[in-house]
C-alpha cells in the first residue's frame, strides 16, 4: 500500500508539473522525491516478494491499514518538505515582500 500510494503521488505530481505555467512552484523537488521513494519501495517489494511469494499479495487487514497510514504520512511529509523549501527559497519573493511590508508598518 505504501508503494501504491507513493506511486500515485509521484504520477499526480508529475502531471501537475507537466501542466505548470512556470517553474516558480518548484514542483520538480516534489516529483523527484516521490519517484525516488517509489523506486526504493519497489525494490523493497521485489525482495519481499522473493521471500514471501504469493503470500505477499494477501496481506492481513491490520498490516494493510498500517501501510496505508504510512503511505499517506509519507505523502504528507513530502508535501511539508516541499512547502518549507518553497517558503525558504521564496522564488516569487512573496515571503520577503510580506516580511518587509510588516516591518514598514511598525
Amino acid at each position, binding site marked *: 500500500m*505504501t508503494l501504491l500510494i*507513493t506511486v500515485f503521488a509521484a504520477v499526480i505530481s508529475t502531471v501537475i508539473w507537466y501542466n505548470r505555467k512556470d517553474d516558480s512552484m518548484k514542483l*520538480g*523537488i516534489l516529483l*523527484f*522525491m*516521490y*519517484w*525516488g*521513494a517509489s*523506486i*526504493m*519501495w*519497489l*525494490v*523493497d517489494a*521485489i*525482495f519481499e516478494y522473493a521471500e514471501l511469494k504469493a503470500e505477499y499479495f494477501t496481506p492481513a487487514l491490520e498490516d494493510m491499514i498500517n501501510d496505508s497510514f*504510512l503511505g499517506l*504520512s*509519507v505523502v504528507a*511529509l*513530502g508535501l511539508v*518538505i516541499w512547502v518549507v523549501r518553497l517558503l525558504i527559497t521564496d522564488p516569487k519573493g512573496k515571503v520577503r515582500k510580506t516580511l518587509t511590508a510588516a516591518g514598514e508598518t511598525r
Partner: protein
Amino acid sequence: MACFLVSGAEALVVKAVEKAEEKKELKGVAADGASDAVKRVPLSRKLKWLCNMLTGGAVLLAFEHIWHGEVVPWFPFLTAMYNAEDTAEMLHEMATVGVAMAVLITVVWIGMCVAADAIVKRGVTETQAEEV
C-alpha cells in the same frame, strides 16, 4: 533496517560531484559562450535530478524506518546496532536491498538523461527544419 543509508551516502557523493561540475561548467560558459548548452542538458542539472531522487527517497524511507521503530533519536540511532546478530543482518540488508535501491535509481536516472538529451535534440532538429 538501514537500507536508506546507501542511497543517502550516494546522494552526498553525487552532490559533491554536482557542485564541482557546476563550477567547471560556469568556467566553460565564461570561456567559450553558451552555444553547446542549447543542444544538451548540462551534466550538473542531470546530477541534480539524481541527487533529488536519492535524497528524497532516502528521507522518506528514513521516515518509514522511524515509523517501524528501527531508527530512534538516541545513540546508536539504529535499533539493529544493539546486538551483533542484528547488526550483521542490517549490514546484509544494506548490501543487498540498499545497493539494489541505489543501483535502480541510478539506472532510471541514466534512462532519464538519455531521454532528456533526445528530447532536446529533437527540439533543435524540428526548429532547424522549420527554419528551412
